[in-house]
């Protein structure tokens, strides 16, 4: 195992019975899970190569229960790992042996739908797709659409500032949240923002979104909802050269056109997805783009005509414009099944770096070199419009040496992303997976400013421990006091 976990604290383990009793008093009935085989369900997330059995799991049903749990755990110095659906790809919700897992899955009600103000207030355990489902009858939706949206919760989306294929136009979670109900580490309940487009004081919503459970526990969320476009239609392009695809993306954006999605797949990904989804992808090309536009029939036709014209200037080899809902579904089916289809071929780790989009050919060449250097294979799927890369580095999980190689290849790829002007993670988060790479992107003072905020809001560092920050990250001993 390459990623280190701190040794469980004996003083915490020693008071397990008292912790269980206290949690039972707060969340009665089936709200507290102590049996080992039931706790196993919470020992990992979507980073399944790492597992730690939690000390106890509690599933509160109200914000007040969450507050009581936090007040108790803070007073006792017991670590707390907040959890939504456990779909984190970076190990953001993997527990540890001396931690209470605080799952918000039972808190999944819709509290208010306000079509006049285009907002919706929900409990944090509701799934991403259920939010849109609640307002679909009126033609509205919640915009950020991570691939795991059927399962993942808004709690997890807020924690990780999740994106999705359509954030080129609609933004990420941070751009679509107006209010949060936060339980502080001390167990205080705080309302931040609400139905207005901004809130007084510092932008705490902006700070909390993407803070990976380090600063508090969110129990309610006010989201913006939007009216669905009249229609959406993708076009599929195949290119014989990678650079042609990159240049097409640059020129589309340079021409003032912002599609809702620009997805890139390389040869390996095309072949894997086509074998699985039978989407009709071209197999004789090096690179493929799926570009989607929205609007009325006439608007979509006009935009697609311009986009196709730009692609033709770069010698596009294949052009497939969707002519029906069935064709649209087929084009997207392949892309959306990329992770699952790759999983049929091999085990893989999914990376999530971002690069300046102009460096696409450089990063592809670099990834190819890195992965070949370790004797492995890679399939590349990207959100090309915003430079967010998902290289899937393939390996055999039954070969421990190969797994280590794959992890090293992944780390080298992320280092390359930072060197090219990008970052370690575009939408999955740091979690445990990229924790030890933070110094690639940040200096000691950069990290110190972040850990000072952590210390200010969680002085005992009990929230989601051993994540985000390197274990030896610089930090002040105690919160700094204002003069």
């Amino acid at each position, binding site marked *: 195992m390459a990623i280190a976990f701190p040794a469980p604290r004996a003083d915490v383990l020693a008071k397990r019975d008292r912790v269980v009793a206290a949690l039972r008093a707060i969340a009665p009935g089936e709200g507290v899970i102590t049996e080992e085989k039931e706790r196993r369900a919470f020992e990992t997330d979507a980073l399944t190569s790492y597992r730690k059995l939690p000390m106890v799991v509690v599933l509160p049903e109200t914000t007040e229960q969450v507050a009581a749990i936090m007040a108790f755990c803070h007073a006792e110095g017991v670590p707390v790992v907040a959890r939504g659906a456990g779909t984190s790809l970076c190990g953001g919700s993997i527990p540890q042996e001396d931690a209470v897992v605080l799952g918000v899955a039972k808190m999944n009600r819709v509290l208010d739908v306000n079509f006049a*103000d285009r907002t919706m207030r929900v409990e944090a355990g509701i799934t991403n797709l259920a939010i849109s489902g609640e307002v679909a009858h009126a033609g509205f939706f919640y915009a950020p659409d991570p691939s795991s949206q059927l399962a993942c919760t808004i709690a997890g989306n807020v924690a990780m500032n999740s994106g999705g294929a359509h954030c080129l136009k609609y933004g990420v979670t941070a751009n679509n949240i107006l209010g949060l109900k936060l339980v502080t580490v001390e167990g205080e309940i705080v309302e931040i923002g609400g139905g207005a487009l901004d809130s007084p004081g510092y932008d705490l919503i902006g700070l909390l979104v993407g803070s990976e459970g380090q600063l508090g526990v969110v129990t309610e969320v006010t989201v913006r909802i939007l009216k669905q476009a009249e229609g959406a239609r993708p076009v599929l392009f195949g290119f014989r050269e990678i650079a042609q695809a990159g240049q097409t993306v640059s020129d589309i954006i340079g021409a003032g056109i912002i599609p809702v999605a620009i997805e890139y797949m390389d040869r390996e990904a095309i072949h894997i997805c086509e074998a699985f989804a039978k989407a009709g992808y071209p197999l004789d090309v090096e690179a493929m783009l799926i570009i989607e536009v929205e609007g009325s029939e006439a608007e979509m036709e006009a935009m697609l005509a311009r986009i196709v014209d730009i692609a033709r200037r770069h010698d596009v080899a294949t052009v497939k414009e969707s002519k029906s809902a069935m064709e649209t579904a087929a084009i997207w089916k392949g892309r959306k099944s990329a992770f699952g289809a790759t999983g049929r071929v091999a085990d893989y780790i999914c990376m999530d770096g971002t690069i300046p989009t102009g460096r696409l050919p450089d990063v592809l060449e670099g990834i190819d070199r890195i992965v070949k250097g370790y004797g492995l294979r890679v399939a590349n799927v990207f959100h090309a419009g915003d430079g967010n890369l998902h290289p899937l580095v393939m390996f055999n999980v039954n070969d421990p040496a190969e797994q280590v190689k794959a992890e090293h290849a992944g780390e080298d790829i992320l280092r390359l992303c930072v060197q090219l002007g990008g970052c370690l993670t575009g939408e999955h988060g740091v979690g445990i997976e990229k924790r030890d790479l933070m110094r690639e992107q940040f200096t000691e003072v950069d990290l110190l*400013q972040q850990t000072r905020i952590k210390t200010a809001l969680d002085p005992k560092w009990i929230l989601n421990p051993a994540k985000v920050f390197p274990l030896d990250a610089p930090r002040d001993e105690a919160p700094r006091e204002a003069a």
Partner: protein
Amino acid sequence: MTLHTPSSPADLAAVVAEARRAGTPLAVAGGGTRSGLGRPVQAAATVSTAKLSGITLYEPAELVIAAKAGTPLREVTEALAARGQRLPFEPMDHRALYGTTGEPTVGGVAAANVSGPARINLGAARDSMIGLKFVNGLAEDVKSGGRVMKNVTGLDLVKALAGSFGTLAVFHEVCFKVLPVAEGERTLVVAGLSIPRAVEALSAALGSPFEPTGAAHLPATAGEAARTLIRIEGFAASLTYRTEALSRLLAPFGTVETMAAGVSAAVWAEIRDAALFAATDEAVWRLSVPPSAAPALAERLAPLSPRLVFDWGGGLIWAGVPAAGDAGAKAVHAATKAAGGHATLVRAPDAVRGAVDVFSPPAGPLMAIQRKLKASFDPAGVLNPGRMYPGV
């Protein structure tokens, strides 16, 4: 009054270090065009970003621009315009309102999270800010974010600092994501609506698939009927189609007219800059509320005889009231809070702004978090002390 004009991040850090050592607070200044925004700051010295100037990165095909904090905003907008691009958030120009001269800066826009009518659709300044370099109150040169638009690496200090009014750090470089300028814009007008009907009409437009980038209401005055305005943007065929579709949608509210070409941009600039109040001596409030709460709030403010302008579909209300006494502070804060929002006293004499809550104070535990955040960036209270709240 000492004026420091550091010309490098290292010089800036040295100025802050010296202020911290001497225990003398610093006022933080960009172009000075919005210095009336916030509570008056008591400081013997000012640190200005004037000599930290220049665009450091512009990649049109990547929709990204970065500039040093003291760069005049005009330089950035002109560079963008030359390549058919713009800052999406349509930042307000405060000069007319305050009667100030000089040049608004990139750092000032970021520090005050200055946005405009397009915020309703394209986000605020904080939504476009993707990278920030700054010196905190401990004189450390820190960065957060970067130059790519999707980045969730570590805590998002960029957003925590957007709108922090120089109380947490002095910015020295800001990176924005940008958007293409739309090929055309068109503004639809419905005349004569009451405030409740106007907010309903705006809500209908904003709840349509036609993506308005402006939704404002100018109530009736002695000389002119009320006007409800909806702006759409796009290419020619799209504008024609959406104009027709929105006209049908809004038909129940009255006759829908299209504003003459050329007039539209000027009208939205006036709304953006709260120009109605430019040449007056009224106190000016900015109220941010859920749009559907706006009509009742307007009703409740009636005893102050305010002049009102509604933007963001009713969610942003500009209110001009007599500057006498507390400039209506007690009544305005109470009414806005009851409406589920918050209020900012944008323009009033220093004495008034020193005596009342310029920004609605966050409730108890929320204020405690604000103070913890302040302490984690600037524990000695060196930077712009009291600009937002007493001690913050």
